[in-house]
């Protein structure tokens, strides 16, 4: 992997999850094993929810940027996204999933961002 690095920060630590990325890439599929089917399903559903969250967040940021929202509306939007973020993290933890686990390749769907 090292010889594929063309430019990197002096300390690679910010990307340390990369060290396990290859293993993740290999397991980045929905696990259909009957014993863990619930976790596999949760992984798929949460991946889609996370994608939707990111799309909605971008949309919200554009609307705020457009300046058509009141202070109050911005505050409410922000609180909603904050809460959503927190809930998603709790769900992720409940199913023992990492942030990286929610990067299933969704094909063309993943390019909606």
């Amino acid at each position, binding site marked *: 992997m090292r010889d594929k690095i063309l*430019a990197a*920060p002096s300390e690679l630590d910010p990307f340390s999850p990369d060290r396990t990325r290859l293993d993740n890439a290999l397991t980045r599929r929905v696990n259909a094993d009957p014993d863990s089917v619930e976790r596999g399903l949760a992984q798929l559903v949460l991946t889609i929810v996370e994608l939707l969250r990111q799309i909605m967040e971008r949309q919200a940021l554009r609307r705020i940027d457009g300046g058509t929202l009141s202070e109050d509306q911005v505050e409410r*939007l922000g609180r909603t996204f904050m809460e959503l973020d927190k809930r998603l993290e709790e769900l992720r933890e409940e199913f023992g999933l990492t942030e990286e686990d929610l*990067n299933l390749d969704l094909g063309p769907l*993943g*390019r909606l961002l």
Partner: protein
Amino acid sequence: MIELYAITDDPTPPDPPLRAVRSDGMAVLYAPAERRAVTAEALWHHEHVVEELMAGRELLPVRYGTFVADPSAAAEALAGRRDELAASLDRVRGAVELAVRAEIREPEEADSTESGRDYMSAKAGRMAKADLVHDRLSPLAREHVLRPGPELLRAAYLVDRAAVEHFVSLVRRLQESHPELDLLCTGPWPPYSFAGEAQ
């Protein structure tokens, strides 16, 4: 059982154990293989084979783990999508894939007393940084793909072979002028992210 590595219109035969099966000016490069456990080593082996093939010819990489029964099944699959694959090959001809990830150096905000407005402006700040990097790099690429991920930016760029050095030096310059960011650029990779149907 055979494992597929690449699709090309280059007539040069690959080195053994790789072989080519041709159909209407296009070829699938493959090797006899048994289905085996998925390991990091196996994935890297596939990657090395594709990279070596890429050094000598224009190709569409086939993703790891693509097995078919025999060469005639591969030829049949090729014939069925010939025009689409030829168009995809033209799309990546003369280019490689460079991957860029960016992260921002800052203490994690996540303050529970934070207001909704602060939360959104922190998000907007992150998005502006990601745009800053992407907007500088994307003009140097033929195409790009942005991917969702926990980082500030996770992107793949399709870059002309001749422009790779320029692209990398731009990443370095961005890194120097933005010490608050961590930029990681890897490659050159076979154009995996651009080998499918054009958007």
